């Protein structure tokens, strides 16, 4: 669904991404792994329109696209769920899910239709942990917030959802819940990119693994064809003797 070819990105003298290529398919979870500073977040922000790319190509459905802002990305069906969530604590679930893209009736907000659609989206993802969509986000647990952030990304007929460390701050049960949700997104036909440090998470839900090492894409492999140890080797040294 999404293809990235030969992307370069520098911040001043620091060359963060070097000729990075990445292919993401619909219906699959692609795990993006790499050590701290490998360029995972930068790559994601380039795809999401937060950073402009220096050169290279981004293709959606085989067609070259130009993404200059988060709105461009959203227009192409690309949604990013950030590590720090980016929800407004004081707003409720509906208000957060529709923030920046509110539905209107005349000059006033169309609250009933937004509330209905938010409930529908949560139901379609089998999210039953929140009791009311009119709850303020501040009153939710970490796992619930993460599910709201993901549901927000799904609401917009998005086709590619990128999740930046969705389980980083979560307990065991909540992590399982969120991973289950991630799997469900792919099973619903979306393309999913999962950034994670946690090998257990990666092997639990991903179909493919893409490994970044010091700004270079060193491998893209099927999850079933590699072992824990090989992936760790890719992350820490950029190569693995046992992968061609």
């Amino acid at each position, binding site marked *: 669904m999404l293809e990235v070819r030969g992307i370069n990105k520098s911040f001043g003298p620091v060359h963060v991404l070097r000729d990075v290529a990445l292919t993401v398919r619909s219906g699959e979870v692609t795990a993006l792994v790499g050590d701290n500073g490998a360029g995972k977040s930068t790559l994601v922000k380039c795809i999401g329109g*937060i950073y402009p790319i220096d050169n290279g190509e981004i293709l959606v459905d085989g067609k070259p696209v130009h993404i200059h*802002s*988060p*709105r461009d990305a*959203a227009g192409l069906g690309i949604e990013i769920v*950030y590590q720090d*969530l*980016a*929800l*407004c*604590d*004081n*707003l409720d679930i509906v*208000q957060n899910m529709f*923030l*920046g*893209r*509110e539905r*209107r009736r005349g*000059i*006033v*907000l169309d609250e009933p239709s937004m509330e209905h659609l938010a409930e529908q989206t949560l139901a379609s993802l089998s999210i039953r942990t929140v009791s009311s969509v009119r709850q*303020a986000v*501040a*009153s939710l647990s970490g796992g619930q917030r993460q599910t709201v952030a993901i549901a927000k990304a799904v609401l917009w007929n998005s086709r590619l959802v990128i999740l930046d460390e969705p389980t980083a701050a979560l307990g065991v049960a909540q992590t399982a819940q969120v991973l289950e949700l991630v799997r469900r997104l792919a099973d619903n036909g979306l393309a999913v990119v999962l950034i994670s440090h946690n090998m257990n998470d990666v092997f639990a839900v991903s179909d493919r693994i893409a490994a970044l090492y010091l700004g270079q894409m060193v491998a893209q492999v099927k999850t079933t064809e590699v072992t824990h140890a090989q992936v760790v080797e890719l992350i820490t040294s950029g190569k693995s003797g046992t992968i061609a």
Partner: protein
Amino acid sequence: MTRAKEILRTPTMVTFGALLLIIAAFSIMAPGLFNTPGNFLQLAQNVAILTVVSVGTTFVIITAGVDLSIPSGIVLGEVFAVHALEMVGGLDTQPGEVHIGYVFAALGGAILAGLSIGAINGIVVAYMKVPPLLATLGTLGAGLGVALILQNGVNTSTYALDPIGHGSWIAGVPNLIPIALIIVVAGYVLLHMAVFGRHTFAIGSNPEAARRVGINVERHLLKVYLIGGVTAGFAGFLSVAYFSTTSIGGHSTDNLQAVTAVALGGTSLFGGVGSIIGTLIGVWIPAVLKNGFVINGVQPYWQDVAVGLVLIVAVWLDQLRRRSRNRG
């Protein structure tokens, strides 16, 4: 959580309860004097101008900002209004004469003053990233200075705006009351029912989140400070209409009164939380206290003491609420 507990935890309801309590107490202490329709109409007229600026201040404070420049917005509104009147030759309108053209000229001048000071505040806060407390402290001093320069330090009186300040379009109801009510309703719709208000809450709650969903945070903040400026300028227009003169020295604590009203009404100075209805209640508490003290023969200065204490309690309750929420 039960419904009743939820209501008790809403700061607006607590303040409303306090207001009702104060009204009940004064009604018992001075029956037939305090609790008369005439007295309440008088009160409503007295708070009308403060209500108008407080509506604007509510928007500003919800973005986690503050507007200390309100007095200069009001005074410049007055000054621009009378200068506009002078330009169209309406300054010497006699009492009883009605020239609607003069009214609109003065209104235009006052709004222009408000827009100017609001634009400066907005640009300095949103784009130059100067903390709002200091940015608006700067425009407070500068604006008052400009007003004094334009007036050579003396006030100008005029009767041209009498039809606004002293008429009763609705029998028995002074005009300032419906005017303030229109501003309150407009503010309510804009803040609680429109996209603009939703984005205002979002920016006050988490500006980074707002930016990520594509809201132009800087431009929105500029608009919010423009609203603050325009309501101040409009209040200046109403002030000239009501007092038939500019009062360049007479508004120096209006900013603090507006912030007090907004905070009493449950709007959080940390941003992201607040309501127009709360502000409306917050405007009334100091006014009712003062009025009640006067009627009961208590020195009116006690009002300042009482309001100060009530304000501290209100903000403290807000803090408690936040802390318990963050724990929960």
